[in-house]
């Protein structure tokens, strides 16, 4: 081993460094493409904000899913149901009240934003409890089917005319049916700063952005600050779930993943542990859903289809189930390469070429047969990038399961104790034996 790379290698061993390097690489690539395309400051900042948004959210949700699948081996493919419950409950609690039964107007309880966030998170956790009671004793594949069915039932509920609007104590509330809900509670970033009595600081930041962007800097500032807020949430999830994993609690979860009966035989009430972990994970998914959609202006039930769940699964599998670091890296890679990447590419191509996409696959193919003209097919491909990226995601998932089921970081030792286990501390000499026989 050469002495020159060992400090670097040692540095790379640290998980925070791995995540940092990966994020730096992703951002650099995006900025460089932006420079090449002459995006301008506003465009660059917006693209960074969007990237940060998705990187952080996929990291958050993979972390939550990792608690279920990676740690405990609970095969939950109903993630989107918990996200939907989170944001819907949050919306109903925090939307401005509507007392008049005016046509189409559905209001909320008008409570502060943080109450809504809390309520949404708790509601997702409670749904988790409801699912856990019958379902956690089922085989993994049955649990999968039950959870995905549950997430569809959640969507049907929000879609249903039955709960579209109803009156509670003189307030007209509801889930809005197929047309969804307008989120009329303003920018959460501004409200957060105001709540912390930092309104002045916020105005200062907007002013700062205003020095590089002339017109209306506020949305850009909000986007960036929200990204920072989300990264903070990722940090929080990472620390909390890391502590959870490196503790006796996490140790029992891992034992359950490996062999539930054996853990039971050692006196661990595995059902209670599973329920706790499941409920916590669901609450974190609910919070993830809230953070994802609270700035979107409106929500409709059909956003919450199972494919969103599978996005998060792919992110987790890229990173490697069982590892929090892997979850964050998988989330970041998924967001940058598979989720945002193709859309980014699409806008790049649209910027460079005048795309005149044919409306059907047939019209795209016909010119090839005729004059060997590949351009229409190319345009069709660019125009259908949102479908193609889903095909690619499917292929990536198949590839990973074939070639690298343990994920990006490979087979890792994830410690399962709150204390250092690698070396025995109370010894005069460290637990190594230079050259002694020790297979």
């Amino acid at each position: 081993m050469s002495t020159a790379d060992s400090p670097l290698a040692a540095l790379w061993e640290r998980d925070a460094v791995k995540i940092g390097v990966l994020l730096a690489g992703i951002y650099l690539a995006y900025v460089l493409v932006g420079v090449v395309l002459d995006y301008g400051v506003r465009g660059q900042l917006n693209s960074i904000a969007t990237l940060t948004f998705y990187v952080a959210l996929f990291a958050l949700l993979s972390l939550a899913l990792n608690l279920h699948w990676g740690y405990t081996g609970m095969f939950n493919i109903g993630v989107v149901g918990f996200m939907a419950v989170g944001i819907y409950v949050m919306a109903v609690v925090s939307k401005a009240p509507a007392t008049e039964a005016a046509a189409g107007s559905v209001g909320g309880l008008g409570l502060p934003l943080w109450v809504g966030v809390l309520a949404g998170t708790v509601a997702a956790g409670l749904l988790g409890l409801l699912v856990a009671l019958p379902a956690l004793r089922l085989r993994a594949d049955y649990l999968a089917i039950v959870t995905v069915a549950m997430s569809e039932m959640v969507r049907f509920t929000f879609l249903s005319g039955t709960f579209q609007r109803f009156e509670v104590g003189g307030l007209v509330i509801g889930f809005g049916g197929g047309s969804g809900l307008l989120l009329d509670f303003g920018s959460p970033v501004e409200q957060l700063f105001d709540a912390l009595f930092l309104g002045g600081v916020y105005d200062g930041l907007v002013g700062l952005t205003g020095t590089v962007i002339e017109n209306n800097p506020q949305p850009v500032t909000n986007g960036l600050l929200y990204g920072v807020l989300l990264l903070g949430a990722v940090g929080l999830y990472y620390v909390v779930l890391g502590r959870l994993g490196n503790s006796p609690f996490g140790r029992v979860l891992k034992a359950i993943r490996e062999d539930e009966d054996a853990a039971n035989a050692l006196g661990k009430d595995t059902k209670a542990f599973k329920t706790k972990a499941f409920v916590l994970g669901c609450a974190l998914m609910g919070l993830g859903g809230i953070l994802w959609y609270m700035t979107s202006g409106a929500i409709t039930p059909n956003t919450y289809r199972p494919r969103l769940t599978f996005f998060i699964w792919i992110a987790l599998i890229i990173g490697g189930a069982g590892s929090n670091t892997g979850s964050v890296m998988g989330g970041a890679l998924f967001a940058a390469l598979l989720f945002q990447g193709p859309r980014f590419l699409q806008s790049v191509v649209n910027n460079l070429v005048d795309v005149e996409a044919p409306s059907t696959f047939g019209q795209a193919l016909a010119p090839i047969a005729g004059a060997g003209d590949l351009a229409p097919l190319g345009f069709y491909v660019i125009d259908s990038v949102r479908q193609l990226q889903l095909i690619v995601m499917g292929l990536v998932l198949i590839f990973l399961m074939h070639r690298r089921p343990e994920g990006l970081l490979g087979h890792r030792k994830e410690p399962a104790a709150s204390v250092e286990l690698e070396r025995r501390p109370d010894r005069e000499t460290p637990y190594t034996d230079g050259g002694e026989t020790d297979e």
Partner: protein
Amino acid sequence: MGVTESYSRGRELVEGNPLALVFGLLIVLLLFDLVGKLASGAVQVSSVAVLVKDGLARGLVIGLAGIGLSMTYSILNFANFAHGDYITAGAFSGWATTYLIAGGFGSSANVGSLLLVGAGGSVFGGALGISVTATPVAVVGGMVVAGGGAILLSLVIDRLVFEPIRDRDGITLLITSIGVAFALRYTIQFVFGPSKRGTTAAGGVPTLSVPVVDGTVRITAHDATLAVVAGGLMLGVHLLLQRTRLGKAMRAMADNEDLARVTGIPTERVVRFTWIIGGGLTGVAGYVFVLWKGTLGWFDGWILLLLIFAAVILGGIGSIYGAIVGGLVIGLTASLSVVWIPSSFSRASAFLMMILILVVKPTGLFSGRSTA
């Protein structure tokens, strides 16, 4: 199963599971309620009859497609989440053929448009006058191609995707099948476009009006086609499994793969036939479903998938009769539930049924885990 045996089985079920008793009572209660509603005239007998007809038709499709899912689930030991998209793929391949034949191989519309099943509204099934009576050759041809297409697809996917990881656990295969589902579904969308199209000439289908107490039930030629095709194929599978060596080998493998291998059953061959039979039935199920409902979209199979899982679990994984009965129960549940609950929850009621079965009797109604 003798009467006494089923009685004692039932007693065991109830004693072991108070929930099962509650479940049974609930069904009885609902039936009483239905009778009451019918007697008081709150619900018309004819409208219930329509719901039953509808539920049976859906149930047959679910059951037919469920046989394939159930067989692969028990013989290959994994829940194939791509199964719904095999249905869609089969339906599209079959309907492309039907369009091509009904469109006179390009004489009444552009061949490309016909092959893409009228993507982007370039040609309409109604305009081609497609129905089982008006264009029987196109429909039969399409049905055959749908079955063949789905067989080919499932064999190719098995060879490329599932066979290399046959020795891994069921969860790995399940996750992989989700990848297959994604790739397949959005390839279909990429090629055939995202629109939902009408496929049949709705007005031109012969219809029989059957008078029922307070109204009539209309039975169309497509209803009849669905019933005949589904019933015939189910009977065929039954004979195949009971009467042929292959069927016996398949049943043996569903019970215990290792044992089957030791006793010299060529397992890969059995696996291949499982895909062939399951895939064929699935493709045809997709085709007749589209014929029956008159529309086709890239989403159709995925929508059915969870209901099919519900049916297969209800009937007991590995049992083809279970899949058929499960399909009918799920179809009827979803259809009849609108008597009591809003129609937006009809699928939810079928899912709820599945969850209840999983909790009460996870092995399903036809437990014992044999294909027989």
